[in-house]
């Protein structure tokens, strides 16, 4: 198929189309389960946390903010929320059992799982003095301070509120919407029960909601 540049044809806007009947969640005006895994760019868009107070860090040398917490509490979500304000930044994820990617010299620098930095590379990166936004399981304050960094530590598990969870869940539902009609909402009672069951573990809440939405599906397993 050749690229083609067409002359526009003016026309009236059509009415909203009805959802395809064969989509499992079409009757809910959704094209998929809202609480499944998201592609990278949607994770950034869905990062529904207020990070405005840390925006100055993005442009201040020798300044670091480290987000600490257990898995599923939102460390990566906070990094991605800040990344939206710094499209020129470099984002590096350090895997556990695989070779690490090279650490760019771009400023600011986002490092997820920063506790996995080997001491040589860590020393080299800290020496550069670029603004750092870190996701980590270990407190790197002393190491950073030795290289002259001002460090702010944020424990993300203390950041979750009912209102924030409601925004996160609604954002996810909106991202799965077909745009053909009203979509389901998550009630306050449901959010409360999720907080009772899972505390601050947002990932566990998302998995529970995934299973709930699976029960609302319209068509059967494996069938087109």
């Amino acid at each position, binding site marked *: *198929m050749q690229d*083609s540049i067409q002359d*526009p044809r003016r026309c009236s806007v059509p009415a909203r189309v009805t959802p395809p009947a064969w989509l499992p969640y079409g009757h809910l005006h959704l094209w998929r389960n809202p609480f499944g*895994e998201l592609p990278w760019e949607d994770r950034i868009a869905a990062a529904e946390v207020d990070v405005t107070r840390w925006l100055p860090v993005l442009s201040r040398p020798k300044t670091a903010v480290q987000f600490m917490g257990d898995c599923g509490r939102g460390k990566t979500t906070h990094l991605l929320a800040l990344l939206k304000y710094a499209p020129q930044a470099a984002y590096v994820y350090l895997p556990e059992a695989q070779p690490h990617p090279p650490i760019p010299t771009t400023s600011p620098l986002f490092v997820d799982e920063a506790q996995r930095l080997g001491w040589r590379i860590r020393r080299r990166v800290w020496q550069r003095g670029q603004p750092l936004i870190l996701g980590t399981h270990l407190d790197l304050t002393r190491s950073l301070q030795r290289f002259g960094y001002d460090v702010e530590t944020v424990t993300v598990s203390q950041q979750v509120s009912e209102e924030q969870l409601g925004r996160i869940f609604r954002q996810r539902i909106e991202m799965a919407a077909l745009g053909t009609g009203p979509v389901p909402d998550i009630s306050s009672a449901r959010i409360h029960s999720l907080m009772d069951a899972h505390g601050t573990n947002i990932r566990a809440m998302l998995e529970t909601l995934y299973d709930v939405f699976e029960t609302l599906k319209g068509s059967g397993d494996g069938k087109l």
Partner: protein
Amino acid sequence: MASCELTIQLTEPEAIFHGGDAIHGHVIVRVDKNVTCNGLKVSTGWETHGKGNVDRKTVEETVVFHGKWSAGESHRYDFTLPCASWPPTYHGHHLNIDHFVYAQADIPWAFDPKTKYPIRVVSLQADPLDPQKEADSTELSGAIVSVIFGLVALAFVAVAAVMALFNPFFSVIVFGFMALVGVWWLFTSFLPNWKLGSVRHRLETDVAHPGDSVHANLRVHPRSSVRINGVEWTIKAEEVVVRGSGTDRKTYRHEVASHRVRASGPTRLDARRDHNFALVFPLPDDSPYSIDLDDNDLRWTVKVRIDIPNWPDWNGEEALLVRPRVDASERQARRAPEAANDSEPAAESTRFTDVIGLVARARGDMDNLERILEGVADIEFDVQAKLERRISVGRIDPRIGYEDGIVVMAAHPDPHLPLLLYASSSTAAQLDAYYGRVWQGRGTIVGYDRRIGNLEIRISENERRK
């Protein structure tokens, strides 16, 4: 507020598309603010969704507009793009695969408006991965893994032994771990094999199609007589998806189908002779296909269990590939209309008679005739031909006929078209009974002899006789 809103409309929104089909539609742009668009891109592709990491692929894309839009305007841009051949649309539990038409407008210094429209795609052909190559590579990689595992285990034992000399507590931990591994190996491998002697499990169907039968065989050759409670096969399909990576990596499994077949009840296996247990299992027509993406798989396995009383059971497992059955007539129906002349009416039937009609009309136009022959190459037809006589043509080109075979002058009855049939020596005897009469069998079109104006057909070996 977004600068514009995009909507996709398809010519056939409810159609089920087959791999490679053209998708026709248009993108409607409603403009809210004066804006410059650096490119309105329309593309087709597929993506997974569910519990696993997202796998996706773009099939083809095109830019349908770039320029300025004014507030309050609405515009429509047509497109035609192909859909993917693989994987098929699939809606499961942890794994879902959907195909889309995507539209996105590149607006500088602003959020790019975008939209997508889901389409259903049925695959006529499978992933191009060769199942035999996949099996070979699996065996090779299995052997490499075994060697590496053995070397690592040896190194581990050596290091552990040295460290144990310096730290007895460490030796307790290490040897405790080794003991656990040893016990596991004892119960799952050594003891069952010791009891049963030689056991060989073989899946005879490497690649199955929905509706086909799956064949497997289990052979046991015990050193001494042994009683068993039974042999049971399990044919299972399972979604296996992976979320995250590293320490955050988690695998989710969901059983899509499970069929148990009992091959034997309680019996005694006599010593020093082969005991065979066969599996013949018809896969349901709606069985999902095997899917192998990066983090999203649908896997079929055939497991067999020998239930040994008061003893660890013997278990074997092999992977089964379930692929689409590529229907030759379906494939021809999609290729022959493309090969025909534009002024000719599109061929609606996939029968041999229709192809004969196309060839007969195209004989004066060699370019068109060649396109038709290309379109029907390798397709096996039910051939009808009135046999006239054997002819001698000297050495037969093995790419067309059979070197030790025969050539028969014939003609298709209606529409009339002279034919040359190439048959093997084993088929020649069958044809002898049909000279002067209409013969029916199976064959493929292999060319057109311009000198004498005959369509050349290679008769299939073991063709049926009518």
